[in-house]
């Protein structure tokens, strides 16, 4: 008799157990929240608002929806959209620049491949960095913004820091995983030629992970644009501020202008990043 295949026998039951677990967790969440599909149908006043709001989507505003109450010398509406967009982008760029530096530095230190061929005691530092990264990721930028608003007031630094801290953590985590998953054969070959651990890592390993790192950074920049827009809800002068004001004034056509402006920015980023990606991969 051939030996039994322990792995093959165990696999299905284990898979079933995991799937059952996920399903049970979903059930628990649904009943715990007392979810009711009927809640998704808006009531009379809500229904009218929905019609009005989505109706405005077909006629976004190009000028202010109502000129009453506008102070003398107010710049044109489209100018305001542009200014909001520009501020949103500058917040995102500033936050992303900091995050790239922090994410790269922490990502290197958190990756196993960086510490290969070094003294095992360095693992202590690596785990400390991983702990730090986890802490940075665990608080959402909006919560951090609340904290920084209370301590720093409405300064751009507060919003930028609030975005940069969790973003650095996320980038560091993902970068470190990309580095560790990149092919290692070429790096080994360099160590065979007498290269030191840092040379092996920077020249043999990092370049292989670079296309993925660049693509992911682009995606995170897109997220940073969204986060920076939302920062406007706290009073920072990004597009979110104007969006909220228009919404509160029931100027839905203006709201849609802002939303379309954001969509266009994300589309432009998408085209740009896919072009760059093609260059890296080809």
């Amino acid at each position, binding site marked *: 008799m051939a030996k039994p295949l322990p792995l093959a026998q165990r696999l299905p039951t284990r898979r079933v157990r995991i799937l059952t677990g996920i399903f049970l967790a979903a059930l628990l969440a649904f009943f715990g929240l007392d979810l009711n599909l009927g809640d998704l149908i808006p009531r009379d006043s809500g229904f009218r608002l929905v019609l009005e709001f989505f109706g405005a989507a077909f006629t976004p505003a190009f000028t202010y929806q109502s000129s009453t109450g506008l102070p003398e010398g107010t710049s044109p509406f489209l100018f305001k959209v542009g200014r909001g967009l520009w501020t949103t982008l500058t917040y995102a760029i500033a936050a992303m620049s900091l995050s790239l530096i922090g994410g790269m530095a922490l990502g290197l230190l958190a990756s196993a491949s960086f510490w290969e061929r070094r003294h095992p005691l360095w693992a202590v530092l690596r785990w400390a960095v991983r702990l730090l990264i986890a802490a940075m990721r665990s608080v959402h930028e909006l919560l951090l913004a609340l904290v920084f608003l209370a301590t720093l007031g409405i300064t751009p630094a507060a919003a930028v820091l609030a975005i940069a801290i969790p973003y650095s953590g996320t980038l560091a985590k993902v970068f470190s995983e990309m580095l560790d998953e990149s092919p290692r054969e070429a790096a080994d*070959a*360099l160590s065979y*030629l007498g290269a030191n651990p840092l*040379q092996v890592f920077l*020249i043999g390993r990092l370049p292989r992970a670079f296309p993925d790192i660049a693509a992911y950074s682009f995606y995170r920049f897109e997220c940073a644009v969204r986060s920076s827009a939302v920062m406007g809800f706290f009073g920072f002068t990004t597009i979110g501020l104007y969006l909220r004001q228009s919404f509160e004034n029931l100027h839905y056509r203006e709201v849609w202008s802002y939303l379309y402006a954001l969509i266009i920015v994300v589309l432009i980023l998408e085209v740009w990043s896919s072009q760059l990606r093609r260059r890296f991969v080809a």
Partner: protein
Amino acid sequence: MVHLGGAPVLRGVDLEVGSGERVALLGPSGAGKTTLLRAINGVIVPRSGSVEVQGTALRNLDQRRLRQIRSRIGFVHQDHSLVANLRVLHNVVAGRLGRRGFWSSLRDVVRTSKTDLVEVHRILERVGIGDKLFQRTDSLSGGQQQRVALARALFQQPTILLADEPVASVDPTRSRDILDLMTELAEEEGWTLVASIHDLALAREFFPRVIGLRNGEVFFDGPADALTPKMVTELYSLDGLDNAGKLDGEGASKEQDG
């Protein structure tokens, strides 16, 4: 004796390779060819016995000294040994990493000096792919990539070249060209060449000395002509291989020189 995991991979291997010699390692897969090559450049340290390279014993060397010795030993692998998405130029320049400080090696890759550029181009011309200098390495064919690996070795200026199945991933017609080039370069540069080859005919054609490994032991060591068909059949026969898993650490331990 060299162990990997529990069972010894090499036992009682006692070899001496003279300077400038060209040696082919033959034997079925799992015979210990790769392990022997890795022992020669100190990637694997035998549990018992010793490896000496040019009079220096590799045991108990600190990392710095070991890197110094490795910088004089070129290594050509079967495949995947080049950084695929770097240019050919940068892969060749990486040959000298073992002798470069950190900052100068970084500059080599970011902004190669004019003299190095000229030298790399000359070397690439020598291996027949001078026009590929600025191409991305993964855009080259398998045979061309092995030429880049040889160019890297040339730029490294070693005294020994180890090659682990250098033509196993290259199509048969190109294999001869690559081995032709490799042995020619070894002669020109005075390299000691040790290569594992699984094609018997190629080993005979290009290497004056053949070492047959079987089950981690030297089965044959001598001039290629002395290898009889009967010995070859025995070398690759499956008899005895089944015992490989049962070998324990009690086998005879001998000194090994590389």
